[in-house]
């Protein structure tokens, strides 16, 4: 099978490409900068339809992992990359008669600020102010799902809080804050949070590519991917710190205050037109203070996917990775 992987320089994109290569698939990567993989590569902008279509030539499937993440930047930038970029991928798939598209999304597209307790992949919601990442991904996901047809099998995968060795998003931020003595938990840190060890997230995308055939049950649907092992957020954060060899006691910030501080930071950073990340946003405070875990059955039943590395094994691997002296 020949697969185009967009955004292969990201942790998840890269690991997925590696997993496909390892089992003997043909891979084309598409991203802005060289990914350093031993494979065909097209460098460019994801919004460049002609270029993406060229990269997709002869492909059976596309895994669309390219996106603008984080919290820095304005709506137009997020929209342009995450919505128009997705439209370009769909168009490229159509032009090349690609069989299936696996669109990488995020559970935060359905985030409403309330606790998520064993829910499925709820429909994306839009209309946020701020939280442009989630907002743009929500539009992008709708667009991708709407493209599902008898000819083009589109599946949306929402990996939830992916982490592992080399992860700069979750692990990187927690460790950085812990080192700076600025690690804080919202409330008592009792909210149950499910996460995804990186290997599982990559294998879920591979499973989705395999399952996404026209007429399959998963076509036109979104799936949340997670380990299925929700843990109190405190335990998780301390587990990551401990893997990094840090013995920290996080501050506890009452939920209400965290929400206020999040909103305050957002406004301040917007006023200053800062290009750095604010330490807290309202969205992040909500995410940190409320439960987020999902029903694992749809992914198991429809994609035939189950995680291969447990949270405890993942933390062990992370600790090894830190011990092996990776640049902090």
């Amino acid at each position, binding site marked *: 099978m020949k697969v185009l992987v967009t955004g292969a320089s990201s942790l998840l994109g890269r690991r997925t490409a590696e997993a496909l290569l390892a089992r003997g698939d043909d891979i084309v990567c598409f991203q802005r900068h060289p990914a350093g993989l031993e494979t065909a590569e097209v460098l460019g902008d994801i919004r460049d339809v002609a270029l993406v279509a060229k990269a997709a030539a002869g492909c059976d499937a596309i895994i669309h992992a390219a996106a603008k993440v984080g919290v820095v930047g304005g709506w137009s930038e997020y929209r342009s990359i995450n919505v128009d970029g997705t439209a370009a991928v769909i168009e490229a798939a159509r032009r090349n008669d690609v069989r299936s598209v696996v669109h990488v999304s995020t559970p935060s597209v359905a985030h409403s600020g309330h606790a998520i*307790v*064993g829910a499925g992949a709820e429909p994306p919601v839009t209309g946020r102010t701020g939280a442009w990442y989630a907002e743009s991904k929500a539009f992008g996901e709708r667009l991708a799902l709407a493209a599902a047809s008898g000819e083009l099998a589109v599946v949306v995968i929402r990996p939830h809080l992916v982490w592992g060795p080399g992860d700069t998003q979750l692990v990187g931020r927690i460790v950085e804050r812990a080192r700076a003595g600025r690690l804080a938990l919202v409330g008592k840190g009792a909210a*149950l949070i499910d996460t995804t060890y990186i290997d599982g997230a990559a294998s879920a995308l591979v499973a989705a590519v395999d399952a996404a055939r026209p007429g399959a049950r998963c076509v036109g649907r979104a799936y949340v991917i997670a380990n299925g092992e929700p843990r109190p957020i405190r*335990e998780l954060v301390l587990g990551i710190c401990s893997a990094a060899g840090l013995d920290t006691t996080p501050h506890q910030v009452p*939920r209400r205050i965290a929400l206020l501080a999040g909103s305050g930071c957002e406004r301040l950073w917007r006023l200053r037109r800062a290009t750095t990340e604010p330490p807290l946003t309202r969205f992040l405070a909500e995410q940190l*203070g409320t439960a987020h875990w999902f029903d694992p*059955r749809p992914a198991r039943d429809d994609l035939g996917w189950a995680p291969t590395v447990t949270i405890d094994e993942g933390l062990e691997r992370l600790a090894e990775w830190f011990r092996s002296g990776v640049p902090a």
Partner: protein
Amino acid sequence: MWHVLERGPRQPLATIVCVHGNPTWSYFWRSFLARLGDRYRVVAVDQLGMGFSDRVPRRRYAERVSDLDDVIAALGIDGPVVLAAHDWGGAISLGWAAAHPDRVSGLVLCNTGIAVPAGRRAPRLIRLAAAGPITDFVCRRTRIFVDGTLALSSKRVSRVAREAYRAPYRHPHDRRAIAEFVRDVPFSDANPSAAAIAAVAEEVRSLRAPVLLAWGSRDPVFNDDFAHDLAERIPHADHHRFAGMGHLVVEETDVAGLVDAWLAERVVCSQPSAVAVSSPVRSGLHRGGPIWAGLEARSGDPSPAFIDGVTGQVTSFDELHRRVNGIASGLTALDLQRGDRVAVLVPPSRDLLATVYGCWRAGAVTVIADRGLGLRSLGAAVRAAHVQWVVGHPSALAAARVLRWAPGARMIAVGSRTVLGAVMTLDQLTASGAPLPPAPTGDDPAAVLYTSGATGPAKGVRYLHEQMTAQRDVLADVYGITAHDRLVAAFAPFALYGPALGITSTIPDVDVAAPGTLTAEALGAAVASVDATIVFAAPAALANVNRTATGVDPRFAKVRLVLSAGAPVPVATLRAAAALFPTAELRTPYGMTECLPVADIDLIAIEAATAQVCVGPPVPGAGVCVGPPVAGASLLIAPLGFPAQHPVGALAVGETGEVLVCAPWVSHGYDQLWRTEHDARPRDAGGIVWHRTGDVGHLDREGRLWIEGRGVHVIDAGRGPITPVPVEVAVERLVGIDRAAAVGVGPPGCQQLVIVVEAADGSDGLADDELTARVRAAVAHPVAAVATVAALPVDIRHNTKIDRTAVAKWASALLAGERAKRAW
């Protein structure tokens, strides 16, 4: 022109015509259309002048009945009809049913009436609304009647539904029929419709079609008395009483679900179901004679039958026997009818024993509520039972009268002092000298028992005489009880068995509502007073006796049997008790209000069974061993959540499922709870009726039953169900953990297992890393989180049953990141 709502499949199982009351409309029946419309043709009509049907000149009752006939014909319904009716719709439907008895295949009546029940006046609210010139103002000119009806719901009708109910009645001219309906209520014989309604009230007595009374109990208009009036006219009617629900019962609760189950059972059943026999095993009945036989056998015996632990008063067998017969004769002389219900509000005493056995001898049905219920639930139970008689101390009678537990019931005062409102005192009754009535037979009803339920209002459990005698016989057999035994009942209800078994009994000096306060000294005194051979104590009582014991008590030396039941009995409690009663066997019967005993085990067997499990890795399926079924009882382990409609099948040995029991002493059913009884009594392929205990467990190779928790507490996890007790047993084996609760958080099918333990330091919240790690290592399933609380919610009486539902609620809030507040 008629407005109707209709839903149905191409080939309906039956046609249901729903007739609303005043002042609702077909919208009232939307849950019927939603629930039943996929299999039944459900038609809800708006009566003429009501809802969105045309406004027409005044219709009287007889015209409304023929209107219903017209619309049924116009809808092309020419076959059998199931009628569902509410309020005025009930009288109209009964009118149609009386005129077309061959066309009615079923009748569902919700909070309605056809006549004012004997001894009662018409509902005050309706009388008020119908009082002359007020009617027009209340019903037509203003929305008072429309809005007032919505207020008769026990829970707030949602804003959307309120608007919907008001929608067809916005203007006075829309509401004319509402006033006309009210004026048509026959308060006097002069009312033009009175004769027609009275005629129907008699004609319904010949109805043969199945009838279901689905009743909200908190209806100031059509209260329970109207249901009982209909039940008296239609004795074969099934009755389901929704405790706490109001006039708009269909709006308030799942009446549609009840009707769904009822239609399947009574109206469209594919195979004619055997006439409901709750206990198909009827062998060996009356082996020991009627329930009072043991007492009768010792008539003339001057030895003590009962010693009052508080007053020290001694009652001989001869005296008790005479009192029992005296009460039976006296009640009959007061015109007590066979089957009359008697609320026995008497604390454990000679008078309690005499009253209960006297009632049984007279053929009355005793209504006995557990004191642990508390005053509110006690009142609710007495009210629900619809008693004709109340026996109690003057204070209890006063409470019953003031709180209107039993309006219209005749009262008998315990003691010698006459009280205002009481027809007689118990002593006068005893001395009446009237002849003994004929004795009731085995299939006559004997008792309705109310005990505290795990959730919701207490349920009345009905027993027949033959079930009570079967229970007496099995207890005598299992525990080898003979006339030489003497009993201390530290669990008061057990004192009632003394006379049945023909043995001397006493109750120690302890607050009956708090058996956990029983001291070793009080028990010692009770044991000494009767020279007891048998002690029955609730686990909490036994635990406190262990705590307060100061050493080996010589008074306990002759006790041969210590029984403890009512909740899982901790092994430690039994072990400690074994040291206190050196020559006694320690046994724990397993059972429930609906069936006792189911199984039985002694301490030695518990230790042996537990030791087997402890060897090697923890067995996931283990739990608490309650022993093999007692002789005469059969057990069946059914798949968890088995469908109620199909014959129930058994799982293999070792497989975990719901525990079902069949025995001659299984209770007859539940009182006025048709659906509860239906759901609790499934049949197997051979037609045998089983009782669902609600417990979950498995049978081992030796035929012993292991209990793994309550069915409602099973954790529905993604990898399959997890039963709480084996998990808790594993956790409680850890050092420093006395009590733990295993609960699920999240939606069924993907619940996460959470362990909540009682914290030594009394703090509520997440457990520390060390405790979490220890608990995870001890449990065979993935544990999402471990939390601690200062104290787990336990049943006050037994002190061992954990309210896992409350724990789960608390843990769910904590682990959702919300403010977790303990509800206990």
